[in-house]
Structure formats: structure tokens, C-alpha cells
């Protein structure tokens, strides 16, 4: 809710920025205008260009064309050091704190105050306390250790570090409240409003529309690599219009026609909770069904998916597969029970980058390639080649190290691995993150084919159109609990987005 403070003169202007990467035009003439003393929301779906724009501003990427102006002056090629010196500060998603440092030490990391005789700890402590008090409107003990703080307080420490030198003129917040439990976000908001009162220009990037409308004075919507709408005087009522702008035209049909042939019940989850990130989750999946799980960062979606694969242990609830109660201690147990996971961090947890494609594909089904415990290379290569052919993995040479493949092809390798192992339940976590459109279509067809062959499929994703196009049913999580379960046909992107951002609850309240 705006307080009626008028934003001041224009401070930062990004004009018609273009940036292309191999295969994708990330920014296509994007512009953004920031004024002093305003909180400016930046919204858009994944892939709309928000993060690329921020990286251009941070000096991480050099734009292909376009210009950046600060205080009316055209800026030269930006580097992180220059940007920092100009007073543009970034509050990343990752905290970057040292766990055993105190608050004061963390705030002053890299910019320590010195006295005649070494560090001036007293001054650092005093100024830290003052800053928190006056600017961030929070109480803090400067000697407390970072690892003993709550997440919201750590966020405040991160913010203080970026701003304590008093030279900040523009501050960019990147999804600041995503990891925060509901109540704690208010602390961060108070801090941000405090900054606004100091005349700082604030750019606030978030998926939580309710927060955006509650906090921001103005909002810019990004879609397809450029700004498509700008909202002045934002209120709660602007939410619908904002969401509408985010989605834009209908996306072309990437999704295969689903012949809903739902079979016997397969997975039964009752009251599952991990005591921290999610609780009381019920879920049923039948053979041949594709169930989607929707939820923003912080909704417990990731942790829930991990728990289904044995990566985390639940503290309450039960899990049954084909009627049998499962107690999964590790992914090895899950795989032994016929559960497969295509993980969200493909390069870390999915493909073994320095192994060949063939070896990667056979990794979960080595028994089938073995004669007396010895690897039967011919059979292994034949199996791999067959999968590569069926899934159209490029390059077709299965001896290529997985590192050299594109994201989409690496994802296909992971899928091939599990197809070769023949599981009953397939979990897909962000299956098309970082995957180009062509591969996406193929992956969707594969997933549909999987379901048709009688496997139960769960798709956990932050890509709403993907969920709507692919799944039969969608379960929505918000802040660790199930908000509702809906047939995919009964939802559209706007309504789904409303549900995932919790706006429905706010609207209902």
C-alpha cells in the first residue's frame, strides 16, 4: 500500500537493452526507469528477461545494444566494481554470509573500520546497531553470530552490508522473501520502507504478486525479453491487470493431446510433513496419471519432492506405493522401490558431467548391461544407442562426455536413464528449466508417453503453463500446505498464478 509519498526525480534509466545468447534472445529492447525514493516492482515469468536485465545492470553481462543512464549521465561499460562504486547495490537471493562471523563483522566485511591500533570494533558495533535501528527499523545485537540468527535477520544483515557505507543510491532486491516464513517477511518490508524514506531507489523483483501490490509504488511487467507494461500508483486491485500482462498472448501448443486413461491407484501420501518446510500433505497418484505440483519458492514444493525420493525424511505422515508402506532412508531405497527422480539441479545431481552419455544412460540399470558382473560394453552401448535414438539425443554419438551436451539433451539423458530402468513412479522436478523450446516439446511428449505406458507421473514445477498443459490434475502448495487440488482443465494461468501466490487467500479474506 503506498503511503502517498511521491517518488522523486528519475535516477536510473535502462534504455532499449538487447542481449542475445546462443539460441535465445534474452532481452529484446528492454527499458526500465527508476526514481529516487520509490519502490519499483519488477515482475515477469521465468525466462521473461528479468534476471538478464539485472545482470546487465550489475555489470555481469555486457549488453549488445542499449544504454544505461545514472542521474542523466550515460554510463560506460559496466563492471561489478564500477557499479558498486556508483552506488548500485544488489541483494542477491543467496545470503553470502560467514556462519561464524558476528553481525557487525559480517556487515563490515570488506569495508572494515580502522582505528589507530587495528580494527575499530567498537565503532563497527555502534554503527551497525545504529543502522539497524534508524534505517532498517529493527533491533539487533551486533555481537550475535550469523548462524544463530533467523533467516529474516540474516537477510537484514545482508542488506545492511550492502548499504552501511551510506553510498547506496539504487538497491535491487532479488526475491528477498522467498525463503522466509510468512510472518518474518514483514521485518524485511519495514526495512525496505525505511530505505525508501532515505531517498533510495529500490527495485524489487518478486513472484509474490500480493507482496508486490502491497509494497511497491510502481510496477514494470516483463514478457518475452522486454517491458510490456508499466503501472503507476499500484494498489491491491492492480493484481489482476498485472498478472494479465505477465501472461500476454496464448502460448503455442507445445503439449501433446492427453488421452486420460487413468488406471489403478499407485501412490498414496497421507499427512506428510517434514517438521519445517511442509506439513499435512495428502496426495494420490494413479497409474497413467500426470499430477502436477505447483508452488513458489518457499512453498515446500522442492522439499516435498525430495522427500518422495528419500532425500529427506518425513517427520509425520505415511507414503504408500501400490499399497505397500514405504520407509525411504535414501534415494537407493526409493529406486529399489521403483521410484525415479529427474532432479532440478541437472548438472550437479543429474548427469555425471565427465562420463560419456552411454555410461550416464546405463547408470541406474547396470545389472542389465552386465555379464557376470562385468560390463558388457556392446550391450551397454546398444541400449544407450537405442535410447538416444528413441529420445533424439544430440549428438547421437553416445561416447560424447555429457558435459558437452546442451541442457535439453542432458535432460533427455537423465530421462533415458530412468526409462532404461523401468520405474513405477516418475518424479520430475523442474523438467524443462534451462531447456530450449524444441527439446521441451520432445520432453513433454515423452512424459505423456510415459503415463500412457502405465507409469504414474508427478511433475513439480514453477512453470505454470507447463503444469497446465501437461498434467491431469494440479495440487497447489503455498507456504508449506496444500491450498487445493484442481483438474487442470478447470484452471487457466491467471487463476493458477493467483493460487500459487496466495492472492486467492488474500482476496478471500
Amino acid at each position, binding site marked *: 500500500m503506498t503511503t502517498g509519498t511521491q517518488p522523486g526525480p528519475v535516477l536510473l534509466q535502462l534504455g532499449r537493452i538487447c542481449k542475445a545468447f546462443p539460441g535465445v534472445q534474452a532481452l529484446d529492447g528492454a527499458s526500465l526507469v527508476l526514481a529516487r525514493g520509490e519502490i519499483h516492482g519488477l515482475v515477469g515469468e521465468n525466462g521473461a528477461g*528479468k*534476471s538478464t536485465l*539485472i*545482470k546487465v545492470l*550489475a*555489470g*555481469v553481462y555486457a549488453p549488445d545494444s542499449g544504454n544505461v543512464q545514472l542521474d542523466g549521465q550515460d554510463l560506460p561499460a559496466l563492471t*561489478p566494481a564500477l557499479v558498486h562504486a556508483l552506488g548500485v547495490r*544488489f541483494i*542477491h*537471493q*543467496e545470503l553470502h554470509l560467514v556462519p561464524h562471523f558476528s553481525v557487525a563483522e559480517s556487515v563490515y566485511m570488506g569495508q572494515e573500520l580502522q582505528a589507530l591500533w587495528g580494527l575499530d570494533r567498537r565503532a563497527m558495533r555502534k554503527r551497525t546497531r545504529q543502522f539497524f535501528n534508524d534505517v532498517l527499523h529493527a533491533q539487533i545485537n551486533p555481537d550475535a553470530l550469523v548462524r544463530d540468527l533467523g533467516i529474516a535477520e540474516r537477510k537484514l544483515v545482508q542488506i545492511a552490508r550492502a548499504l552501511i557505507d551510506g553510498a547506496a543510491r539504487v538497491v535491487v532486491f*532479488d*526475491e528477498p522473501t522467498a525463503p522466509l516464513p510468512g510472518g518474518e517477511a514483514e521485518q524485511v518490508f519495514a526495512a525496505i520502507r525505511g530505505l525508501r524514506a532515505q531517498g533510495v531507489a529500490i527495485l524489487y*523483483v518478486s513472484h509474490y504478486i500480493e507482496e508486490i501490490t502491497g509494497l511497491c509504488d510502481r510496477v514494470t511487467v516483463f514478457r518475452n525479453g522486454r517491458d510490456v507494461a508499466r503501472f503507476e500508483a499500484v494498489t491491491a486491485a492492480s493484481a489482476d491487470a498485472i498478472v494479465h500482462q505477465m501472461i500476454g498472448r496464448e502460448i503455442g501448443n507445445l503439449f501433446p493431446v492427453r488421452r486420460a486413461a487413468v488406471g489403478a491407484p499407485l501412490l498414496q501420501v497421507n499427512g506428510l510433513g517434514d517438521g519445517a518446510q511442509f506439513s499435512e500433505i495428502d496426495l494420490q497418484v494413479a497409474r497413467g496419471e500426470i499430477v502436477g505440483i505447483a508452488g513458489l519458492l518457499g512453498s515446500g514444493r522442492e522439499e516435498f519432492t525430495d522427500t518422495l*525420493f528419500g*532425500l529427506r525424511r518425513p517427520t509425520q505422515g505415511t507414503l504408500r506405493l501400490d499399497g505397500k508402506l514405504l520407509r525411504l532412508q*535414501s*534415494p*537407493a531405497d*526409493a*529406486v*529399489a522401490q521403483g521410484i525415479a*527422480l529427474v*532432479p532440478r539441479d541437472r548438472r*550437479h*545431481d*543429474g*548427469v*555425471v*558431467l*565427465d*562420463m560419456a552419455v552411454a*555410461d550416464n544412460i*546405463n*547408470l*541406474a540399470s*547396470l*545389472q542389465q*548391461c*552386465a555379464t557376470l*558382473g*562385468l*560390463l558388457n560394453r556392446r550391450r551397454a552401448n546398444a541400449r544407450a544407442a537405442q535410447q538416444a535414438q528413441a529420445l533424439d539425443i544430440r549428438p547421437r554419438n553416445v561416447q560424447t*562426455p555429457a558435459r558437452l551436451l546442451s541442457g535439453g539433451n542432458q535432460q533427455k539423458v537423465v530421462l533415458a*536413464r530412468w526409462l532404461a*530402468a523401468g520405474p513405477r513412479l516418475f518424479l520430475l522436478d523442474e523438467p524443462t528449466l534451462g531447456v530450449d523450446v524444441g527439446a521441451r516439446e520432445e520432453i513433454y511428449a515423452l512424459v505423456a508417453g510415459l503415463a500412457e505406458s502405465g507409469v504414474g507421473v508427478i511433475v513439480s514445477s514453477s512453470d505454470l503453463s507447463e503444469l497446465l498443459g501437461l498434467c491431469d490434475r494440479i495440487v497447489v502448495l503455498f507456504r508449506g500446505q496444500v491450498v487445493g487440488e484442481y483438474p487442470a482443465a478447470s484452471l487457466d494461468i491467471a487463476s493458477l498464478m493467483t493460487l500459487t501466490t496466495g492472492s486467492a487467500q488474500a482476496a478471500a479474506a
Partner: protein
Amino acid sequence: MNLITPRLARHALPRPPQALLSCLTLGGVFVLFAWLVPPFLQWDNLRNIVDGSALLLILALGMTLIVAIGGIDLSVCIAFDMGAAFAIVALKDYQLAWYLAVLAGIAGGVLVGLLNALLVVRLSISPFLATLGTFFIGSSVQRIFTHGGGPISFREAPLEFQNLAVGVLGGVPVKVWLAGAVLLVYFVLLERSILGQRIHAIGMQKSAAQHAGMRVGAIVFAAFVFASATCALGGTIASANMQMFTPMAGHAYLLNAIAAVFIGASLRANGRPHVLGTLLGTLFLGMVANGFNLMGLEPNEKAAAAGLVLLLALSLSAWQQRRR
């Protein structure tokens, strides 16, 4: 969304072409010795090199397994010593048959391996610190057991036992046959079996291996036990050679074993430890020791020269191995 600057290369020096440097070094040193000391190239001498490398090879192979699975084992020399100690004690104090003595030796290694495995897998201690602890404890235990570090000798060992080390079969020393057998076993295990595939996957990306459904803990556990058992066999053969157990004799082999593995790893395109590379690394180190011997260096000069060669070889192979 990650706004971090793409990290500039943490290291300043550019990487030389794959394996080229290592091959040049190995070949270069060979040529150097051949030129400096003509007797080097004689057939008898070359056979000496092979003969003298047999024990180191056994140790280095055990080390290869541990490095392949993503760790390091500083206690291989302790397993080696246990192999010698248990075998000699079995023969001397319990009058066991020679093959039982060998089994006793291997059992000694298994004990060391179990300790390591428990520390690493059950207590989640890093392999380096865990095996360092085992190294210290093992060295102390040996000193205690021998009341100060004196050797235990047993001159009446049965002929079969002695033949393990000094016997000759078909013109080739039994020692070399045994080392060859271990080489074959490890080759099949690491490079040809599906278990080997799993081991390499764990060593490369443990998280991905775990996500692929492998029982990582069990495999790592078994690896530590098997590696130590292998090293113990080497120790048993050594004790047969000298007909005694010399405490801490294994220490001398430790760093060479590590070096052999890392030098060998640099010979492969992907920088992974592998059995044939370890063989070449072992022969290289044997060649260096032999060359220094022929040059008439005093033991202490040899120690210094060998130390420098080791440092250089490891540096070069590390330089080559750096990931993009």
C-alpha cells in the same frame, strides 16, 4: 536467480595439452637416465626396475581405488605393516601353515580397512583426516607392539612362504606374478566391471551417483576394506622377502603410492585415476629410484633427489589435470 559474477579462472596459468606433458616427462626422464648411465638400458637392469616396483604397485593399486572413489588413504602403509606383522606373528608364534599366514596378513589389512570405513562412512569424517588418524594410531601401535620399533624376525619360515617374495616361476619372480595378479584384479574391477562404473561415478559426482540410486555408503565402505586388504598382501610379501616384520617399513611407500596414482591419472584425457596409469606411474618412480642408484648417489642424496622429482612430477600432473 543468481546474480553472481561468473567467476574468473581461479588459477593464472593456462593448461597444457592433455597428457602431452606427462608423456614428455616420462619419456624425457627415461632418455636422460639412459644417456647419463649406460647400464640403465641393459635388459637385466630393466628387469630390476620391474622387480623392484612390484610391491609399490600393489600399494598404489589400493590407493588408486580410494582416489577413484573420491578420497585419499594415508594409512595404506599401516595396512602394509599389518600385513607383514600378522603374517610373521602367525608363522612365528602360532606355527600356522604358510597359506594361513598369508590370510592372517590380509586379515590385518581388513582390520585397518574396517577402521577407516567406519570413520569415513559411519562417522562422516573426511577420508584424509580419518586415514591420518589411522596412520598415527597404527604407527604408535606398531611401536608399542615391538617395544620401540625393533623388527621381529623369523628365519624358519616355510619355503613356500619365502617363495612368495624370492621364488621364481617360469623366469619371472613370484613377486612380479603376484603383483601382476593384483593388477589384473584391479583392472577388471575398476575398468571392466559394473561395480567399477559405480565407483567412478561416486568419485566424480557423489551427489549424482546418489540420485541415480546407488548405495554410496556401502560401496565406499567396501572400497576401504578391499584397498587395505590389498596393501596388507603387499606387506605380507615384503615380510617374506626379508623374513621379518620391520615396523613402519610401509612409511617409505606412502608418498610414492600417492604420486604413482596422481601421475597415472594425468596420463588419461579426463584426469581420472586408472589402473594402467598407476602402473606407468609406478614404473616411472621405480625408474627414477633405479637411475639414482646407478648414478651412485648416496642414500641421503637419493632422498633429496627423489623428493624433488616427486614434487615436480606431482606438480606437472596437477597442472595438467585442472578442470576447464
